[in-house]
């Protein structure tokens, strides 16, 4: 196990019932980079992400995160997870949601306050923190979910479709922040998306289709390899080749 690999995915296979959702995935994720898992819905992105977080267990193969085999409760302190659907307590205010999740991690009191203020500011929710979440718009909920993912200052961020339902301006500011987190705080970030222009911003891309990685590499490498100008074309070409 090398030191620079934050996450190692080894021969992971997962099926639900008879349906094989992921087959024989091998992938290493390096520290301090942004990885994009790209693919249509139903390709197995969320299943893979959940197994990395340890919410699910592979049928075959192993996943190591920071050198520890997942699932592992202690490692969860180092993972900031944002689910595909907003998992928030509607009856509580934004601040109470942040407070609650902050209490689930090992943070002392002053640190907790600091992190809440930081995370809220980051997603532009400081002014709305005392409103109940039930009064939030879709975009605000998404932003609050992102703030919760950042609350314990994790080394690894795993974001499942973080920019769905967020307006272009905020999407840009979220990506700016993700890049800053990567560059200044050396965080490892995994993002799933089906938006190709977001994929361009990732350091590495894994294209997922029908439970397999059909193409992996930097955006530049992929485009060169398939001799096309956009990632969209890479995706279509790679898909055809598999079939």
């Amino acid at each position, binding site marked *: 196990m090398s030191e620079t690999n934050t996450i190692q995915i080894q021969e992971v296979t997962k099926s639900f019932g008879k349906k094989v959702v992921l087959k024989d995935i091998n992938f290493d994720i390096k520290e301090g980079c942004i990885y994009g898992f790209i693919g249509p819905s139903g390709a197995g992105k969320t299943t893979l992400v959940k197994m990395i*977080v*340890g*919410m699910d*267990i592979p049928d075959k193969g192993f996943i190591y995160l920071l050198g520890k085999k997942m*699932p*592992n*409760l*202690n490692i*969860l*302190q180092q*993972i900031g*997870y944002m*689910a595909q*659907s*907003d*998992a*928030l*307590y*509607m*009856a*509580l205010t934004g601040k*109470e949601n942040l*407070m*609650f*999740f902050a*209490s*689930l*991690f*090992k943070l002392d009191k002053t640190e907790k306050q600091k992190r809440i203020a930081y995370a809220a500011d980051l997603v532009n929710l400081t002014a709305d923190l005392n409103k*109940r979440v039930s009064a939030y718009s879709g975009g605000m909920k998404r932003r609050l979910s992102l703030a*919760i993912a950042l609350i314990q200052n994790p080394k690894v961020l795993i974001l499942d479709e973080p920019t769905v339902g967020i307006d272009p301006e905020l999407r840009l500011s979220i990506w700016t922040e993700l890049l800053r987190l990567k560059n200044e705080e050396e965080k490892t970030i995994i993002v799933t998306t089906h938006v190709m222009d977001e994929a361009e911003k990732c350091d590495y891309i894994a294209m997922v289709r029908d439970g397999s990685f059909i193409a992996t590499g930097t955006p530049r490498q992929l485009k060169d390899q398939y001799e096309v100008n956009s990632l969209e074309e890479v995706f279509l070409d790679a898909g055809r080749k598999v079939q």
Partner: protein
Amino acid sequence: MRTVALIKRILLQILRDKRTLALLFVAPLLVLTLMNLVFNGNTVDPVLGVANGNQQLLEKLKGADIEVKEYNKVSNVNETILDKNLDGFLQVDGNKATITLLNNDPSIAKSLEMKVKQTYSKEIQLKLMGANAIRSELPSQDLMKTNYVYGSSDTELFDTFSPILVGFFVFFFVFLISGIGLLNERTTGTLERLLATPIKRGEIVTGYLVGYGILAVIQTIIIVLFAINVLDMVLVGSIWNVILINIIVALVALSLGILLSSFASSEFQMIQFIPIIVVPQIFFSGIFSIEGMAEWLQVFANFMPLYYAADALKGVMYEGLNLTDISSNLYILLAFSAVFIVLNLFALKKYRKL
């Protein structure tokens, strides 16, 4: 710490949900009151004729909400009762007494008999204590004989099953609200989100048990106090025991509610558990005679938590049993909740293996 955060969050959520709060605290009172009115239409103080009673006894009887009329020796008790529109007649003869009940409304007759017996036996005990401190307790049955104008001692209604109702409502509302509470946590995806944090399964179960447990204890105390003080339900034993039994009932309902919520995928499916899990318990709780059932059917009663709860509650509230008499029922109830709690830990495994 994480458990405390969870408990705080649960309480905060419920406080924000006024309807649920009302369902938990007000609805049981409403239903109990309604039941009470339906079964005990007559809330007028019963009228008791007394022959040969001393002044102290008469005062005590009046203090127990009985309208007392004094008579000299009467030749035909039954006729006197019917002529003078009495609900009962108490004849005192030395240390022996006979009460004759009109018993046209079993609930009135029962409560009158209960009150008179209680008052009389206390009176006698005081007397005996004064005369001879060693002979302390005489069972009230030996002191007083009961006759009936109509029916017999088997006629009894709301009084006997009101303790069961108290237990049932505690069970029902705690079951429903805790079950739907955890269910919401799952359907909104927050349970899955929780499991992406270092919280342990045990901490989640504990958090839910304590969080909803606090609400259940408050609810239980309100229901019991209301039933006894406002609805005037018969309470022969200690109110503390009644509260204790009901808190244990709430614990069983709580652990069962959150367990079954694992097997429901929507609120509607949770409601579907009511006819399957809750309603049969009523049949086996003792409102209907269990001894009268077919033998194979009686076996089912052993698997119904409410059967033990009802037995304990009836024992304390109606028969005046003390804690040791009902302890086996309480142990069985605690065993039920222990089993449910352990099963809960396994049920959560569906979501995360750690």
